[in-house]
């Protein structure tokens, strides 16, 4: 128990040092996700009306070869590590948000 609280304290310290709020909420994650994907989206118009169901490749027209760069940007932004297998499940904005939430939790 003592050990777990120490881990949480160090993790909180790490995120504070990096200038981020450890308890990032879903809407905040989603807005950062949209901001990152926006750099690679060819359909910029669709960015204004994204929902959880918005497909990253089909609706936002992100080149499939660039999806790796998107995920690596998530890694940098949220200080997480994503395996190739985790990334296979990312089709929509909602998938990306859920993946990030599972990693930062």
């Amino acid at each position: 128990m003592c050990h777990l609280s120490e881990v949480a304290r160090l993790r909180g310290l790490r995120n504070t040092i990096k200038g981020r709020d450890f308890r990032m909420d879903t809407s905040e994650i989603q807005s950062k996700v949209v901001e990152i994907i926006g750099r690679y989206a060819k359909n910029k118009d669709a960015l204004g009306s994204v929902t959880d169901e918005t497909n990253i490749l089909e609706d936002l027209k992100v080149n499939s070869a660039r999806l790796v760069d998107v995920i690596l940007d998530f890694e940098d932004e949220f200080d997480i590590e994503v395996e190739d297998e985790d990334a296979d499940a990312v089709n929509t904005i909602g998938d990306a948000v859920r993946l990030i939430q599972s990693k930062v939790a």
Partner: protein
Amino acid sequence: MQSAVGRVLSIFWIPATTFAMRFIMRYRIPNALNLRRRFRKMVKESDDPILICANHLTMVDSAVMAWALGGSWWYLFNYRRVPWNLPEHSNYGFKWYNRVGVWILKCIPVRRGGRREDIAGVLQRVQYLLRRGDTAIIFAEGGRSRTGRLQLDSIAHGMGRIVNSVRKCRALVVYMRGDRQLTYSAVPARGDSFYVDFELFRPVSENSGMRRSRDFSKQIAEKLVAMEEKYFAGRE
């Protein structure tokens, strides 16, 4: 099952494919003997898995490349070294006999830009085949180079991912181009002569996860671009 059926029928389809390329289409590979000597020596020296990573300009590149590297007689006795290929489903999937044909010819269909889970399933099959000692070919840009030249920003992540995930896997980087091939096309021109060059290497990275796979893809792509530059420099 697919491998076993293909192996049994290989006594027909390997010579037939070679015959078509050599005598009907009159393709020529001037340095074929040297290429085959190098490739066979390389295979003999180590059992470590090999993923062939190549440029892509026509729909028969994988057949011509395989012919350049192994030769039909050698493949009949080394069937595992006939590379598995990942053709785009929409290029042939409209007729049942096409689907049967490519199934026999060691092909695993892929729908580029399709559901990510489906593409991941194809990559997992390739990983399995490499682990058991087969060889596979994957094109660096996924599809054919639309400009006729390699585009670094179109490099597919799959090749780095496979090399990263298969223990001791090496990348055999192959650059091939018909002398009359200006951009992409369905098949090379009849009577074309092919320049083929290859280099075997093991990518390295200090990263882990996807970043490591990305580094591998990048290194493979850079090798291919350097080989392409060498090709065009040699033509000037």
